[in-house]
C-alpha cells in the first residue's frame, strides 16, 4: 500500500474552467446547479464547457440562453451571456454573430422553446446557414412549467395537456422531428441527434457537441445538435430509469444519427470566405455615404446654418391630413431643417394601414434642449390639410398657437379664443403654381414664417436631401416662398 501513497495522480477530468467557480444564485446553493438530480441539462452544460475549454474559445464565446429550465446559462458559463425571449435565441444569435464576427455564438434551447414558439426562428436561421451552433435539448415535454405537451411529445405519452396520452386522432398531432426537418434544407452544415441514454450515447453526445462548436470556429456554418435528454422530475422516474427511458423509448421515435454533414464540402468554401473577408477591410464610417449611394453634398451640413444662441426654440408641430397629401414629408423637411440648424429634433409619424386616402399625421418637435418626448399633444402650430384633420386636433392647440388650415372657409365652430388661424385654399395656390401636390410645401412655408426660427438655408438643405427629383425641389422651394408671402400678406391684411 505504500506504493499507492507515493504514486502521483493528476486531474484527468474535472470541472471545466469555462464554468464559474461559484454561481451567483441563491446564497445557500451557489456551489451546485439549480437542476434536479439526474437532469440532462447538467451533462450538456458540462459537454459544452469542455468543448469551449478544449477549443480555447472561452474569451470569445457568447451563450444565448432560452426560456425554460435552461434559462440560467448566465449563472454557470463564464462567457458572454445573453438571454433571449422565448424561442428567439436563433434570431439573437444571428445578430450577435453578424455584428461580432470574431465571436463564437451558441444558442442553447429546449424543445418547447425551439420546436414550438421558436419554430420560425430556428427554421430561418438554419435556412440562412448562419454560422452559429445550436444545442437543442429535447425532453419531449414542457418541463419548467409543469409538464405540458410539447410538439416533441411522443405518441401515447401522458402530459398535463394530453392526459390520455398524445393521440393524433384527438387532434394532438405527431412528434415533430426537428433534426430531420432541418436536414431537408440546403444551408445547414451539420445536424446530428444524440442521446443521454447510456454511457456510449453520452460519450457520443460529448463528441458531437464539441464538433458543432468546432464547425463554427472553422467558419463552416450552421450546426445543430439535438440531445434527447432525461427529465426525471416531470417523467416521474428515478434518474437511472429516466436515462434508460431515453434509450429504450424515446430513441424509437427519435432515432439517433447524423442527418446532415457538409463539413467536407464547406471546408474550402469557408477558407475562401475567410480569405475574402480578410482581404476586404471593415467598412469605415467615412465609406458609408458611398456604400449607401448618398452623394457627399447630400449629407447634413452640421451646424452650418446655426441660429443665434440666445434665441429660445420650442416648436411643437402637429401635421395632419389624408395619406398622399405629403403630411409626413412636410414633417420630415421641418425636422431635417432643424437638424441642419443644430437643434434637437424629433419626427414621429402616425398613420393607419392605408397608404392612400387613409388619415395620416405626424409629430415634430424642434428644440434647443434635448427632446423629452416625441409626442406633440399640445401643438403650438397645427397644420390641418383637410376638415376631418382639423376637427380631430383643433382643440389640442395651445393658447397663442396657430392653426394653418387648407380651406378658404374656416369652420366657425372650430374658432377658439386665443388661437390664431390662417385659412386659405393652399391646394388651389399650389395648383396655380404648377402642381396641387405642392400644397404641403406652401403650408410649410407659412408654418416656417410663423415660427420664425429656422433659416431658409437649412430648409433648402433639408429639401435637397429629402427630395430627389430636381424639378420637384425647384417647385417646392417656390411653394415654400409662396407660403411665407401668404402669411405675411395675411398679417398685413389684418
Amino acid at each position: 500500500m505504500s506504493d499507492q501513497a507515493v504514486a502521483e495522480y493528476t486531474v484527468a477530468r474535472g470541472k471545466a474552467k469555462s464554468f464559474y467557480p461559484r454561481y451567483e444564485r441563491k446564497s445557500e446553493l451557489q456551489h451546485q446547479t439549480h437542476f434536479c438530480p439526474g437532469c440532462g441539462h447538467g451533462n450538456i452544460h458540462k459537454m459544452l464547457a469542455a468543448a469551449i475549454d478544449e477549443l480555447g474559445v472561452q474569451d470569445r464565446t457568447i451563450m444565448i440562453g432560452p426560456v425554460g429550465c435552461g434559462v440560467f446559462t448566465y449563472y454557470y458559463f463564464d462567457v458572454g451571456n445573453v438571454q433571449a425571449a422565448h424561442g428567439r435565441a436563433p434570431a439573437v444569435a444571428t445578430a450577435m454573430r453578424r455584428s461580432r464576427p470574431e465571436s463564437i455564438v451558441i444558442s442553447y434551447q429546449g424543445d418547447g422553446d425551439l420546436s414550438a414558439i421558436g419554430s420560425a426562428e430556428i427554421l430561418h436561421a438554419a435556412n440562412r446557414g448562419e454560422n452559429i451552433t445550436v444545442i437543442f435539448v429535447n425532453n419531449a415535454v414542457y418541463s419548467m412549467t409543469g409538464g405540458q405537451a410539447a410538439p416533441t411529445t411522443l405518441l401515447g405519452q401522458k402530459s398535463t395537456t394530453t392526459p390520455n396520452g398524445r393521440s393524433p386522432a384527438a387532434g394532438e398531432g405527431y412528434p415533430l422531428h426537428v433534426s430531420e426537418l432541418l436536414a431537408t434544407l440546403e444551408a445547414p452544415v451539420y445536424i446530428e441527434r444524440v442521446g443521454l441514454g447510456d454511457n456510449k450515447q453520452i460519450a457520443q453526445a460529448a463528441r458531437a457537441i464539441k464538433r458543432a462548436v468546432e464547425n463554427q470556429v472553422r467558419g463552416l456554418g450552421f450546426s445543430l445538435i439535438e440531445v434527447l435528454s432525461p427529465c426525471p422530475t416531470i417523467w416521474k422516474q428515478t434518474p437511472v430509469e429516466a436515462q434508460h427511458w431515453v434509450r429504450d423509448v424515446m430513441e424509437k421515435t427519435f432515432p439517433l444519427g447524423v442527418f446532415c454533414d457538409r463539413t467536407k464540402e464547406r471546408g474550402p468554401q469557408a477558407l475562401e470566405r475567410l480569405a475574402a473577408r480578410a482581404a476586404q477591410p471593415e467598412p469605415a464610417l467615412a465609406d458609408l455615404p458611398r456604400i449607401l449611394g448618398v452623394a457627399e453634398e447630400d449629407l447634413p451640413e452640421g451646424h452650418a446654418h446655426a441660429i443665434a444662441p440666445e434665441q429660445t426654440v420650442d416648436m411643437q408641430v402637429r401635421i395632419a391630413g389624408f395619406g398622399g397629401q405629403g403630411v409626413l414629408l412636410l414633417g420630415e423637411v421641418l425636422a431635417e431643417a432643424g437638424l441642419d440648424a443644430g437643434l434637437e429634433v424629433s419626427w414621429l409619424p402616425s398613420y393607419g394601414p392605408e397608404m392612400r386616402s387613409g388619415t395620416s399625421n405626424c409629430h415634430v418637435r424642434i428644440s434647443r434642449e434635448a427632446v423629452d418626448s416625441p409626442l406633440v399633444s399640445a401643438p403650438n402650430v397645427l397644420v390641418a390639410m383637410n376638415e376631418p384633420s382639423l376637427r380631430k386636433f383643433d382643440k389640442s392647440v395651445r393658447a397663442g398657437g396657430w392653426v394653418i388650415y387648407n380651406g378658404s372657409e374656416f369652420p366657425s365652430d372650430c374658432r377658439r379664443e386665443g388661437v390664431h388661424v390662417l385659412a386659405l385654399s393652399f391646394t388651389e395656390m399650389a395648383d396655380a403654381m404648377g402642381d396641387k401636390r405642392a400644397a404641403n410645401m406652401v403650408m410649410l412655408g407659412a408654418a416656417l414664417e410663423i415660427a420664425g426660427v429656422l433659416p431658409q438655408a437649412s430648409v433648402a438643405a433639408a429639401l435637397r436631401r429629402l427630395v430627389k427629383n430636381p424639378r420637384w425641389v425647384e417647385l417646392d422651394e417656390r411653394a415654400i416662398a409662396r407660403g411665407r408671402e401668404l402669411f405675411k400678406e395675411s398679417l398685413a391684411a389684418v
Partner: protein
Amino acid sequence: MTEATKPDRGRLRIDEEECKGCGLCIEACPPKVIALSERMNRYGYRTALYAGSGCTGCGICFLVCPEPGAITVLRLVSPGATRAAEGAAA
C-alpha cells in the same frame, strides 16, 4: 512486486456538497467502485461515495454526472514509468 500492490490507474474525488445523489455514476461505473453513502449530506441527499480503490480512471462517471464539479477523476502519472522505476529498484 505483486499485482495486488500495484497502484490504481485512477482515483476519484467526490464533492459531497455538490452531489445530488442521482446515482447515474453508480450505474455507469464499469468496475463498480462507486456506491451511495449511508449518511445524508446537509441537503438531504445520500451522495456518491468512492469505494477507495479499483478506479481505472476511465472518466465515464464524470461524463454521466450532471453536476459540473461533483466528480473529479484523477489518473496515475505515466504508470509505465512507475513500473520501470519499480523494476529498477527490484
